């Protein structure tokens, strides 16, 4: 019995050879337990060793293997070939980012933006070690935990038309991670982050398309995080406007 196959149309860009990218078709076995990443590894090992793509954990944790599959950003380690039968399946690098080679994008812009939102715990004054740990109740943990699930896979940036049209926009994941720390009971850095995120390229740039939350493989809901941040920032601004002598946190 011959094995069922499926065609992958893959975005190829080899800057040392080609001026412009083109699609190349490969036929791979359509095995029941294979995901698109398995098919890419099959192509690399058996058909064309020049194909370049990023991957690492194969279990939806590292966030390296995000690509556009039939126009939708997905983690290719979690997208089964059988769901795309009979094909063909079009695989492209994540949208809205410059392409380095084939399916590899340049993520420098995101790394710079992530750094700008201070994604770490900020304290005005550290308590001495002798005072013990900063304790937290389960309810306080639940406040920020959903946002801490972000794996920086950048699918949300690829799904965000605002980022595509206005590349200066800080973007969904960076703002969701800012919220992760803002909502942490141990953190005191809301003002610092809001100084960055209330600029033109921050939270107010978001028009609530909502696709970032739809494509998020970890259920982070960056769109909700941004809208929630808008409300908190607006309340903080009014408080500061009406009661300027009171310093907010």
């Amino acid at each position, binding site marked *: 019995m011959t094995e069922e196959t499926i065609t992958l149309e893959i975005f190829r860009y080899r*800057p040392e050879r080609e001026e412009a990218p083109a699609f190349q078709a490969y036929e791979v076995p359509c095995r029941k337990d294979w995901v698109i990443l398995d098919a890419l590894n099959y192509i690399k090992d058996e058909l064309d060793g020049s194909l370049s793509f990023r991957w690492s954990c194969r279990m939806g944790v590292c966030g390296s293997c995000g690509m556009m599959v039939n126009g939708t950003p997905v983690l290719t380690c979690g997208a089964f070939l059988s769901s795309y039968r009979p094909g063909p399946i079009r695989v492209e690098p994540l*949208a809205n980012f*410059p392409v380095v080679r084939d399916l590899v994008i340049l993520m420098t812009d995101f790394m710079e933006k992530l750094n700008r939102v201070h994604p770490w715990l900020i304290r005005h004054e550290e308590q001495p070690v002798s005072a013990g740990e900063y304790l937290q109740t389960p*309810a306080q943990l639940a406040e920020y935990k959903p946002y801490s699930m972000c794996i920086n896979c950048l699918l949300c940036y690829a799904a965000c038309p605002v980022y595509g049209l206005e590349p200066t926009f800080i973007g969904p994941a960076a703002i969701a991670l800012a919220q992760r720390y803002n909502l942490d009971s141990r953190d005191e850095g809301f003002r610092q982050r809001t100084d960055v995120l209330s600029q033109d390229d921050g939270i107010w740039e978001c028009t609530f*398309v909502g696709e970032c939350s*739809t494509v998020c493989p970890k259920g982070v*809901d960056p769109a909700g995080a941004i809208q929630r941040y*808008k*409300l908190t920032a607006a309340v903080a601004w009014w408080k500061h406007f009406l009661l300027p002598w009171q310093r907010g946190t």
Partner: protein
Amino acid sequence: MSHRPRYRRYQPRLYQRRMPIFWWVHRAAHIRFITRELTSVFVAFGALELLFLVRALGQGPAAYAAFLAWLQTPVALILNAVTVLMLLFHSLTWFNLAPRALVLHAGGRRIPDAAVRGLNYAAWVVVSAGLAGLLLAT
């Protein structure tokens, strides 16, 4: 000299893609989003119409009667019918999105999304009923 930089080893020549003008026509979610954004035009129209009505009222009975006569023309009737539909779409989608932005707590527990949505709808009904009562009483 070529406009495109030559590829040199370890210095990648990046391929930059651009969003097409009609980026929003390929996905149903994007079409819904653009439709919702466009409904804002009708929200603005409704607000302007109300302001012109108030201005006509201030200008005297003749101006007010002329404005009411315009409101009864087929063009105004169709425009207002479309505006009502668009405002309903705008309001309903807004109320459904409200729990994403409004996270409330009571007694140390988070108020469920359905309750936040329900409170918004309830406030809408109460304000609308109040306004209707005020208008019908005069």
